[in-house]
Structures are given as C-alpha cells and as structure tokens.
C-alpha cells in the first residue's frame, strides 16, 4: 500500500468523521441536513475506495440524491409552521449521559465481538462456487436476489411499511390528483425535459447491468423514482389516471410478487424463495423488474406526498 493511498484514505476518513460529528451537533435543522447530504457523498467515495462499487452506487443514488430530496422536502414542512425556528426538543443532562453511555457501551461491545470473532474466510468462496447455479454472472446480484433474496424481499417490505406510516400520518387525501402546472418555458422545465429520457434510460441500463456488473433493482428503482420526482418538480401533478386502487397495487406489487414466487417455490417442495437452477435467470429478472417498479413508485410517492402536502396543504385549500 503506497503512502499516497494511505494519505487519501486518511483524509477521507477524517472528513467522514468530521461530517458525522458536525451533522449531529450543528444547531437547527438546515445545516445538519446539508451536512448529512455531504456525509452521504463522502460515504460513497469511501465505498468506492473499498472496492465496493455496488454499495457506492446505492449510496450515491439513495444516500445523496433521493434521501437529500426527501430531507429537504420534510425540512420545508417543519419551517412552514408559524415560527421560522423549529421547536427545540428539551434535553435533560441525564438523558444525554444515558444516550452517550449506551452508544459507547454498544460500540465497545461490537468492537469486542469483532475482535473476539474466530478467524473465518467469510462466505465469498462459497458464493463464488455456487455462482454458476444462480442464474446471473455478478456475485453481488446473485447474493441479493438468489442466495439472500429473503433480505431483499424484507427490504422492499420496509419501504412498504414506511409508505404506510406516511399514509397514517398525512391522511390518504394527500394523493388527490393535481392539476398539471407545467411551465415549459422555464429553465427547470427545460432541464427536466432534456434529463428525463436519459434518467429513464439509465434506470433501465442499471437494471439490465445487474446481471453482469454493479447495478440492480434498488439502484434502478431509485433512478426511476427520481424520474418521477423530476416530473413532479417540472410541474406535472399526480396524474388523474392513477386511481387509488392502482396506487395501492403498484406499491404492493414488488413485495407481493416476490411473496408469490417464494410461496410457489414452497409448494414445489423447495425452500422459500429458492429458485430452480434452470429457471433462476428468468425468475430473477422478473423479480427484479417487479421490485424495480415498486421501489421506484414507492419513492416517487414518498416525495410527491410530502411535496403536495407542502405546496398545497390538502386541509387548507381555502387559503389560496
């Protein structure tokens, strides 16, 4: 390892630590949000340095792009309320000490667990050995959608539950169709028009790439969701033809499809979500397609929901 590489990594590590501490301690909400976005970027660079381009890609798409938009969106919801400064939660000294103590204890415990772990070679060799039977050529995709597809299924479930929470908190009428307020003459409108085809193309490219290289359902879903967000920002409202039942179907689709595939495997006498090797390739592609669609749509809904709640609050429509 040459000294330049060590210097680069050291600098990056310091930057990440500083961003993390500062994002937690900075006053107000605005500064932490922007520091958190920067933190995501630094993390993406760190994953890149650790030769994990898959994670770097996910971090770039989710951590910086999408999460940033959602945070900015929700930030607006807070600062909109009467006072400009968000209410500061009251902190007691005892609670702070408890929190710091618990964190340190947990960190210490984790550190001990890692140090006390017996030397193992990990599962990389086992995964590489079975790669041929997985139906794809990229080991990360093989793990995510075949060997450990259970995890991916539950991750999609997490998104679904989050959307559920948003429904509960904001009411269902947040999804009333909105009139299109497209402003084609504006700079943003023009940018959206020129970016949109490319964003869609890159989304599909990432989905297709997952078979052989870094890419896959989550990254593709995020990029497709971003396409929807761009449309909303460009002024295209929540479309008329997206009836409530269709919204719900699209939200559920990925999760339900994987459940169906998993159950059919059970009925065929295999384990849950175990694909027969001959069908693995097409099945993974179908599952990925369904997952991409649902992930993208869910993320689009997250954004649109918060955005519409903010620009035209459903309950206060008489105001304007």
């Amino acid at each position: 390892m040459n000294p330049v590489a060590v210097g680069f990594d050291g600098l990056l590590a310091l930057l990440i630590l500083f961003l993390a501490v500062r994002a937690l301690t900075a006053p107000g909400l605005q500064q932490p949000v922007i520091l958190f976005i920067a933190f995501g970027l630094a993390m993406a660079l760190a994953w890149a340095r650790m030769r994990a381009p898959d994670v770097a890609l996910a971090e770039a798409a989710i951590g910086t792009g999408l999460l940033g938009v959602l945070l900015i969106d929700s930030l607006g919801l807070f600062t909109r309320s009467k006072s400009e400064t968000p209410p500061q939660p009251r902190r007691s000294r005892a609670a702070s000490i408890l929190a710091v103590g618990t964190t340190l204890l947990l960190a210490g415990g984790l550190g001990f667990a890692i140090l006390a772990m017996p030397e193992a070679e990990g599962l990389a060799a086992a995964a590489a050995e079975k790669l041929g039977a997985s139906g794809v050529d990229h080991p990360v995709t093989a793990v995510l959608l075949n060997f450990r597809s259970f995890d991916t299924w539950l991750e999609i479930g997490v998104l679904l539950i989050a959307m559920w929470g948003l429904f509960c908190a904001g009411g269902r009428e947040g999804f009333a169709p909105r009139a299109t307020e497209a402003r084609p003459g504006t700079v943003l409108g023009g940018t959206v028009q020129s970016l949109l085809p490319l964003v869609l193309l890159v989304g599909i490219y990432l989905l297709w790439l997952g078979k052989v290289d870094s890419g896959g359902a989550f990254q593709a879903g995020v990029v497709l969701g971003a396409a929807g967000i761009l449309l909303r920002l460009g002024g295209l409202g929540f479309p008329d033809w997206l009836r409530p039942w269709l919204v719900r179907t699209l939200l559920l689709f990925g999760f339900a499809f994987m459940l169906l595939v998993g159950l059919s495997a059970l009925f065929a006498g295999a384990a849950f979500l175990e694909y027969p090797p001959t069908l693995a390739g097409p099945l993974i592609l179908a599952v990925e397609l369904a997952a991409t669609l649902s992930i993208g749509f869910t993320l689009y809904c997250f954004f649109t929901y918060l955005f519409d709640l903010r620009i035209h609050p459903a309950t206060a429509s008489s105001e304007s």
Partner: protein
Amino acid sequence: MTISEGVTLILCLAGAVFFLAGTVGLLRFPDFFSRLHALTKADTLGLGLIVLGLMLQVGSIAAALKLLLIWVLALLASTTVCHLLGNYELSRSSGGEKRKAGS
C-alpha cells in the same frame, strides 16, 4: 511517460487549479451572487478539464463518450442549479414583490 500521459497530466492539473479557484471564491467572496458566480463556473470548467484529461486514458471510445456525457450532464445541472438558486435569492432579497409569477 508518453505524450498522451503528459497531456493528461497538464489537463488534470489545470482542472485542479479551477477547483481551487472555485473554493477560494466560495470562501472569500463577500456576497451570495459573487460566490454563486465563482463557484458554478469554475468547478464545472475544472471538471471538464479533468474529464478531457481522463478521456485520453480510458482506452475505449464507449468509456470516453460516457465521460463526456457525465460532463455534459454536469453542465446542465450546474447551470440549472445556478439559475434556481440565484432566482431564489433574488426573489427573497427583494421580498418577492418585483417578480412576476410564473416567469
């Protein structure tokens, strides 16, 4: 070192100079609009020079075109962001009275 490597070296270094200029401008300029001006132009040019330098080294035309695409997209994003932020700050500082809605 081959000639193409030398050219890459020079282009990348020139790019770094522009990044530095952008950062210095961001930190030193007195008001928002000067900072915006300094930043969005300088670092886009810096990225362009680095992309140009790297294009000589990637070996395949497809990869070189991808680099070029990244720069074109960065141009588009940077321009749009500059306009949006400038507009936002302008309408904020003049109380939003002088701006026509929808323009």
